[in-house]
């Protein structure tokens, strides 16, 4: 069995399993830790696609920065009461799960009946995934979107500070 297939099955099953764990755990801290595992599994998936740069920033930004922020907020909220953590049973759960399974099955049938015809990685894939290749496109053709993202992040920081301030009428 080719290495790409083996790693895909390993990380793919891991990603689905950890994603399911995130949405089923009762305690938000347990969910957050499974979320870190999910991000690491996806970094492995990106490596099977030869996308090294994306795999590294996945670990740095998601597992490193975003999840630390989430765990920090969970800590600030102090959801200590275990009685409150209990999810009440709801018929919505059954309905949503059934609809989700139906959707996945439908997509599976679609992909099986209409193959895209792309059977292997492009020979260019290993070159495309490097920091050099991404950087040279990002700072030439995509310079304007890159600068726009910096404005987006600035406005997000300002918005987050204003929302999280103790008094709204500061």
């Amino acid at each position, binding site marked *: 069995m080719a290495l790409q297939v083996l790693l895909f099955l390993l990380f793919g099953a891991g990603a*689905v399993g950890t994603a399911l764990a995130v949405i089923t755990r009762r305690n938000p801290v347990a969910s957050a830790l499974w979320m870190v595992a999910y991000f690491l599994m996806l970094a492995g998936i990106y490596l099977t696609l030869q996308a090294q740069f994306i795999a590294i920033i996945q670990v740095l930004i998601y597992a490193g920065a975003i999840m630390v922020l989430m765990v920090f907020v969970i800590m600030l909220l102090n959801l200590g009461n275990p009685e409150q953590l209990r999810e009440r049973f709801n018929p919505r759960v059954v309905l949503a799960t059934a609809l989700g399974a139906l959707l996945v099955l439908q997509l599976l049938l679609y992909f099986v009946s209409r193959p895209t015809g792309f059977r292997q990685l492009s020979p260019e894939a290993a070159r495309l995934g490097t920091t050099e290749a991404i950087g040279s496109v990002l700072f030439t053709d995509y310079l304007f979107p890159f600068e726009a993202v910096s404005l987006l992040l600035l406005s997000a920081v300002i918005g987050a500070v204003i929302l999280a301030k103790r008094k709204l009428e500061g």
Partner: protein
Amino acid sequence: MHWSQQLPLEAYLLLSATLFTIGVVGVLVRRNAIIILMSIEIMLNAVNVALVAFSAYLGNIEGQLLVFFVMAVAAAEAAVGLAIVLALFRTQQTVYVDEINLMKW
């Protein structure tokens, strides 16, 4: 060629669709606002898998650039979303979305 030697693009698309659906189900069934935010992150990441797969199979780098921008938007979304949850907890003393009915009439 048999699938155990070469992985077709569909394998990645199906993984992406499965993960996206798990995220949607998480948003629909959970009551905790923080876990709903995490489910949104699951969905954004599922889309990233499809984008990187298309990029690697078609030999086109723009999919990976789009992933870079999706990550920036996800970071902004997480910061603002968590600030909203904090502000909500401060005024309502709860993060459970079914106990919040300020805009319900």
